[in-house]
């Protein structure tokens, strides 16, 4: 099994979620994160004191899926999250040892 982590833009969240569910991918967990990369932050000035805000708010999406679903998942995210502007984000893929569903104790792909 694989864990797909995608850091995306906030306003793409709804689109990505819908695209994924349309593809039959029905589970995910999201986290508010702040990212730093090529996309520049911005400056804020408070009574003349200037702050450079480097971190940009992003959403991280974690999706665990069977190996067979990996490319579907990645492709779907890629398509739905892309704007072509710097700051669209990244997708990270990790190997997963195991998944367990807490409610039933089911293990592996059954747990998804």
């Amino acid at each position, binding site marked *: 099994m694989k864990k797909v982590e995608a850091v995306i833009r906030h306003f793409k969240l709804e689109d990505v979620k819908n695209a994924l569910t349309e593809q039959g991918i029905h589970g995910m967990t999201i986290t508010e994160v702040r990212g730093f990369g090529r996309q520049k932050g911005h400056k*804020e*000035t*408070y*009574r*003349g*004191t200037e*702050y450079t805000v480097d971190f940009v708010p992003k959403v991280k999406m974690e999706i665990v899926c069977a190996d067979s679903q990996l490319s579907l998942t990645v492709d779907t995210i890629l398509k739905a999250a892309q704007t072509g502007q710097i700051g669209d984000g990244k997708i990270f893929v990790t190997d997963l040892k195991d998944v367990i569903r807490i409610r039933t104790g089911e293990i592996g792909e059954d747990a998804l």
Partner: protein
Amino acid sequence: MDTRRVVMGGMVSLCLLWPASVMRADDSNQGEATVTAEVSAGDNAWMMVSSALVLFMTAPGLAMFYSGLVRRKNVLGVIMQCLFLMGIMSIVWSLWGYSLAFGGDGNVRPWIGNGEHLFLHSIQLNKGIGPIYTGLSIPELTFMLFQGMFFIITPALICGAFAERMKFSTMVVFSVLWGTLVYCPLCHWVWDGGFLAYGSKNAIQGGALDFAGGTVVHISSGVSALICAIVMGRRLGYGTEDMRPHNLTYTTLGAAMLWVGWFGFNAGSAGAANFLATNAMVVTHLSASSGAVAWAFMEWVLRGKPSVLGTASGAVAGLVCITPASGYVQPMPALVMGLLAGIVCYFACSSLKSTFRYDDSLDAFGVHGVGGTLGALLTGVFATTAVNPLAADGLFYNQDTGGQLLAGQATAAGITIAFAAVASFILLKILDATMGLRVSQQGELQGLDLSEHGEEGYILN
């Protein structure tokens, strides 16, 4: 422990009730001295409302204005300072503060009040008001309460300078001492016929016009704030860490509350719901308006965007500046005063601070010290007898009387600055040596909410 508690409680009670019983016994004697003027319901209503409004300024007003400007971990620390000062300063005021400020006749005792009003002893049954304020048709208790609200907010303003790092216990002691040793004398000098009061027998340079507290409240607190900022030193991480205001919605809502409450502050200083009160209210509103717009425009022109913090700060600057003048100037000059306050305080906050690199965390000096001084001087320019026959015509209207007035204003401002600075400095040095001024480094990192009060401001998950 338990017995200690009981004993303690008993002693405190005794302390407070002793005057109560004394004063009771004295009633017969006091009876004679009692002022029995007619209470005007309209004036008394207005002064009670004004008192409520000035309390409203400290909290929620100032508490929100200031607490929004600190980091999340210090939000309660700031609110606590305002709230606790509402308690402790009121107690002090009723026990001895009012007497030191308004006891005795300033023409006779130009330096400090006497003990005649200790524990409010002598005024609590007065249906009218004492000799200095004979024109007023409100009970002296109303006057005492209204003035007591100023005694709360003035030290609360100073808190802006040492926010996010001062020990709470030291803050309390400092405020009580500062109130007693700095505020009360100043108040007596300016408002109880002392040596800075306009028209007082002992007045230096003719004394100064200060309708609602340019010198007494804003210069004194603003300058003391600067001294605090310097003596205490900068916050850890100042200049490198992210110290953005954690909740500008509070700050701006608080500014709006200050604006509303300030009507009580300035128009209440008329002591009645008369034409003078109306004039004070109108010019207060206009000065706040042009201050807000001016600061925003400064940012717009110089930085490309008007900010809401700037607009709020400008409004407060305008309010501060008009305070000493509000019973003496007309609407159009008030617009000008607000405008100048917005511009001058903008530079004070953005350039002055960064040039000299003191950490006046919430710009108590930049707004109140600078704005208050500006207002004191401009009062000498725009005051007019058309509004207030007890005043003099300022420089804009009459070179002679105006020059004289302006000199008086400048002198009073200078003396206030010097006195507040020196007294605050000495107080702080003593407290530093005895109690310590700052929380521990670890406490500062953790935030004052946890380290000083064991609480968190927001638990949002």
